[in-house]
C-alpha cells in the first residue's frame, strides 16, 4: 500500500489492517509523519512532532504483534492530540505563552487509556489559547488554517485537531468541547466529532477551562472512528471525582443497529433562525436521507433556548476567570488581548449571577427533555448556521462587539454544553464557497450509542465524510 493510500484510511480500517498484518504500524507512522511535515507548512496545525519516539513505538507495536500480543482496538494507530492533554514531564503549551515552558505534572487519563488501547501519539496540535476561542486564531503560535482553503478559519478551539485529521495528517485526534470546540472545527474542516455527555470521559490531566462544561472527545474521519475512540477513553476514573460511574456500552457493537423507526426530531425554531440558505438546504437533504433509511422525521417545538446561552456565557466566563485568577494577577500581559478581555469579564461576574446560571441548568434540561426526548429519540440540527468565514473576517478583539461575535459563532453548539447532552457532528455537504458544513445529532444523556448508530447509517448512505481537501 502506498503512503498516499495509507493516510486515506480511517482509524478503524487502519487498526484492522495492522491487526491482520496487511500493513505495519511503522509504515503507517512513516506515512502520517511525512504527510504531517508536508501540510504543517501551510496549515500550521502542529505544535510538535515527536517523530523518533513515535517511530520507535511503532516498531515496538509491530514486534508485539509479531509475537501475538495485541494491546487493544487501536493497536499501532498513530494519533496526535490537542496540546492540552498532559503527558508527565512533557510540555503542554495549551496554546499559550504562559504554559510554554511548564512540564506537565502527570499524564491525562484519556491519554493513558489511548496508550492502553494501543494508539501511538506522534505529536501535539495547535489550539486556541487556553481553549478559549471558537475560531482557530492563535496570536502566540500563529493561526491554524483550514485545509479546504487556508484563508478560512478552522474553527476552534480544537483547531489543529480538525485541520490535521481533515488533511490526512493524523488518523484521529483528541479535542475538547466547552462551547463547541470539537463540533466547530469538525464542521469547518469536514470531519466527524463527538462531544460526549458531560462527565462521560475523565478530565484528569486535561487543561481546565470551565469545569462544569468541559468535555473530552475525539475528532476523526468517520463516526465509526469516533465510536471506537470514545469506547476506549470513556468511563469512571479514581483521579476525576466528576467522571461518571455510568457503564460504558459497546459502541462498536451497536453501530450497525437498524435505524428504521428511529424518531428524529427537527426543531421548529432557534436552530434555523437566520440560517444561511445553502446550509438549510443541506440540512433538509440530510433529513431526506434519514426518511429514505426508514427513520421517522418529526417536527418538535423547543423551549426558549436563546436565554440559556446568556447563562452559559456567564458560567464559562466565571469558571475560566477563577481558574486563571492567579495568572491574571501576575502575568496579565502574557495573554492575547481577546482572552484577557474575556477573563477580565469573568472576574467581574457577580457570584449570584453565576450560581443562578448553575441553578437554571437542571430546570432547563428537564424542560428540554420534556419537549424533545418525550417525542423523539434524537434531535437533528445544523452545527452552525452560516458558511465558514475567513480568518480576516473573524479577527476580533475585546468589548461588546467581541462578545456578540463569539456568541454568534457558538450559538448552535453552546446549548449542548449548557445541558450537558451528547452531540455528534457529522459532515453534511459543501456550501458555495467550497467549504464543508455539518449537522449535529443531539441525544439523551449517556446515549452516545444512539447518535453513533444514526451517524454511521448516514455515512453508509452518503460520501461527504470521504471527501478530502487537495493537498497543499
Amino acid at each position, binding site marked *: 500500500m502506498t503512503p498516499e493510500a495509507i493516510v486515506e484510511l480511517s482509524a478503524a480500517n487502519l487498526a484492522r489492517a495492522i491487526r491482520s498484518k496487511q500493513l505495519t504500524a511503522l509504515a503507517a507512522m512513516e506515512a502520517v509523519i511525512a504527510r504531517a511535515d508536508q501540510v504543517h507548512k501551510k496549515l500550521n496545525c502542529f505544535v510538535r512532532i515527536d517523530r523518533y519516539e513515535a517511530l520507535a513505538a511503532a516498531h515496538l507495536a509491530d514486534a508485539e504483534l509479531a509475537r501475538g500480543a495485541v494491546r487493544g482496538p487501536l493497536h499501532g494507530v498513530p494519533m496526535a492530540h490537542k496540546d492540552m492533554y498532559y503527558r508527565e514531564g512533557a510540555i503542554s503549551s495549551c496554546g499559550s505563552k504562559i504554559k510554554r515552558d511548564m512540564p506537565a505534572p502527570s499524564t491525562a487519563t484519556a491519554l493513558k487509556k489511548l496508550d492502553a488501547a494501543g494508539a501511538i501519539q506522534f505529536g501535539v496540535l495547535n489550539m486556541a489559547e487556553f481553549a478559549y476561542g471558537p475560531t482557530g486564531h492563535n496570536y502566540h503560535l500563529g493561526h491554524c488554517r483550514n485545509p479546504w482553503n487556508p484563508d478560512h478559519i478552522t474553527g476552534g478551539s480544537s483547531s489543529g485537531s480538525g485541520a490535521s485529521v481533515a488533511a490526512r495528517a493524523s488518523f484521529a485526534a483528541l479535542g475538547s468541547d466547552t462551547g463547541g470546540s470539537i463540533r466547530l472545527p469538525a464542521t469547518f474542516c469536514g470531519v466527524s466529532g463527538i462531544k460526549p*455527555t*458531560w462527565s462521560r470521559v475523565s478530565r484528569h490531566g486535561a487543561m481546565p477551562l470551565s469545569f462544569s462544561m468541559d468535555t473530552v472527545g475525539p475528532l476523526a474521519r468517520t463516526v465509526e472512528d469516533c465510536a471506537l475512540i470514545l469506547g476506549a477513553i470513556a468511563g469512571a476514573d479514581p483521579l476525576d471525582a466528576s467522571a461518571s460511574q*455510568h457503564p460504558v456500552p459497546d459502541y462498536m457493537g451497536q453501530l450497525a443497529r437498524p435505524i428504521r423507526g428511529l424518531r428524529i426530531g427537527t426543531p421548529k425554531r432557534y436552530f434555523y433562525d437566520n440560517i444561511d440558505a445553502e446550509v438549510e438546504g443541506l440540512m433538509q437533504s440530510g433529513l431526506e436521507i434519514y426518511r429514505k433509511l426508514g427513520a421517522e422525521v418529526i417536527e418538535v417545538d423547543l423551549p426558549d433556548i436563546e*436565554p*440559556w446561552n*446568556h*447563562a452559559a*456565557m*456567564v458560567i464559562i*466566563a466565571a469558571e475560566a476567570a477563577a481558574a486563571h*485568577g492567579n495568572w*491574571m*494577577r501576575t502575568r*496579565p500581559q502574557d495573554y492575547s488581548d481577546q482572552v*484577557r*478581555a474575556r477573563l*477580565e*469579564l469573568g*472576574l*467581574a*461576574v*457577580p457570584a449570584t*449571577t453565576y*450560581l*443562578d*446560571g*448553575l*441553578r*437554571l*441548568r*437542571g*430546570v432547563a*434540561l*428537564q424542560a428540554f*427533555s420534556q419537549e424533545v*426526548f418525550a417525542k423523539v429519540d434524537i434531535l437533528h440540527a445544523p452545527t452552525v448556521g452560516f458558511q465558514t468565514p475567513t480568518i480576516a473576517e473573524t479577527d476580533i478583539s*475585546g*468589548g*461588546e462587539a*467581541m*462578545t456578540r461575535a463569539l456568541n454568534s459563532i457558538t450559538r448552535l453548539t453552546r446549548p449542548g454544553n449548557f445541558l*450537558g447532552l451528547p452531540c455528534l457532528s457529522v459532515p453534511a455537504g459543501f456550501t458555495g464557497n467550497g467549504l464543508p458544513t455539518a449537522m449535529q445529532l443531539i441525544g*439523551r*444523556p*449517556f*446515549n452516545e450509542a*444512539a447518535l453513533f448508530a444514526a451517524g454511521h447509517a448516514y455515512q453508509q448512505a452518503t460520501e461527504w465524510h470521504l471527501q478530502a481537501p487537495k493537498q497543499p
Partner: protein
Amino acid sequence: MSQKFTADAVTPLLALVGTNIEPARAANVAEALATQVSAANAVYASLPFEAEPAGYLHACAKAAP
C-alpha cells in the same frame, strides 16, 4: 434590557480581586458585563426558589436511557 454599568465601577471591582485594569479595558468589560449579566438575570426571573446547582445532575440522570 442592559443595566447601566461603567468603567469606574469595574476598576475597583477588579482591584478587589487583585487585578489592575486600564481605563480602556475597563470600559470594554463594563459594556460586555452589563449586557451579559442583565441578559442572564432576565432569564432567572422564572427560576424556582427550590432549584439547586446540582439539580442539573439529577435531571441528567433522570433523562438517561
